[in-house]
């Protein structure tokens, strides 16, 4: 099966709602950020030890959620296609909150800034967090031209996902016996 079509060779692409737009269109940019975030999570899963099956499953679920986020963002407001998509809502954000609470319960309290890094899996989680924050900012730009409720679920989800990824980075360091490196002013 060939994966290429070539209809984007002149710099335009189709949204899920059918519009032909430049590949520099904000809606395409934000989808690219979500795709990048998903790919970083894939790298992180690849770096996790095999015995971390539960954590792997949790991240795979988030990766699946991000496909729904991408489809939602790739569809313009008022498109009938939205009715066929799974909306990211409070239940997805609550699932992240439960995961944050679970991971954080195993960690010592944090009272200082920490330097991103440590074990490779933690470093990937920090990269994912930073990409997630960028995706969130881009979604906020996109939201300025849309009905406020259209992207509220995605914005809350990405905000909470960034928090999850920060805690996940600390958890990965803890898991591998690598202390968080405190920022020295």
């Amino acid at each position, binding site marked *: 099966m060939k994966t290429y079509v070539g209809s984007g060779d002149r710099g335009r692409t189709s949204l899920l709602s059918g519009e*032909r737009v430049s590949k520099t269109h904000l809606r395409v940019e934000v989808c690219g950020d979500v795709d990048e975030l998903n790919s970083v999570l894939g790298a992180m899963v690849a770096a996790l030890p095999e015995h971390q099956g539960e954590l792997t499953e949790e991240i795979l679920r988030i990766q699946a959620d991000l496909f729904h986020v991408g489809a939602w963002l790739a569809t313009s407001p008022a498109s009938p*296609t939205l009715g066929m998509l799974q909306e990211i809502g409070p239940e997805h954000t609550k699932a992240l909150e439960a995961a944050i609470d679970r991971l954080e319960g195993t960690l010592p309290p944090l009272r200082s800034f920490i330097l991103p890094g440590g074990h490779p899996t933690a470093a990937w989680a920090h990269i994912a967090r930073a990409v997630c924050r960028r995706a969130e900012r881009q979604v906020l730009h996109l939201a300025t031209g849309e009905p406020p409720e259209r992207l509220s679920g995605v914005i809350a989800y990405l905000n909470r996902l960034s928090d999850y990824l920060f805690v996940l980075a600390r958890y990965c360091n803890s898991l591998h016996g690598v202390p968080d490196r405190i920022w020295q002013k």
Partner: protein
Amino acid sequence: MSASSANSFTAELLHRSWLSEKAFEVEISRPPSFPFQPGQRIRFIRGTAERDYSLISAPDSPRLALCVRFVAAGLFSPVLAGADIGTPFNFSGPHGYFIFQPSPRPPLFVATGTGVAPFVSMTRAGLTGFTILHGVRTAAELYYQAEIRVAAGLYVPCLSDVAPESGLPPGAYRGRVTDYLSDHLASGAYDFYLCGRREMVRDVTLLVDERFPGSRVYTEIFY
């Protein structure tokens, strides 16, 4: 149920009939809890191999029907072509977002070969008045033309491999669908629905970018 959430089913082969030397239609039993919208696909699963086919049935049909291009070296079409009636098949679905979306812009369907399948399903669901171009090499491949002619506002078979001295079906165009669009479609914004070979999808999409700004393009590509 969301149209994008797909489930797994088992169905029996009920009927098979050849449409040409290159394509055949199969009917399989419809699981009771299988909803779909015209334009969507099902995915046959056999071991680790998977293959998608668009449904041609109306959404309220008691059976599921598919239009299958026969590929001798293919993973699935030889199996479907040779299976005994009653053979069970596993599939998942419904898949895809290639559904008709009413808008102020005129709809323009473009298919190549068995890519006409989703438009047959839409026609059987009662859709009328659309323009459709069906690109094929010869008239023998103009599957379902009788029922499409009745439903369409304009039906243009585009035959790319017909000798100059040969006759053409009523309303047919000698050439490719892209040539027809380039030569005959008035300027304006349309809703293009493209289903078939990727070369057609690429060429029509690039033409839309160049000639029909403000249009929307929905695609279903046969790889």
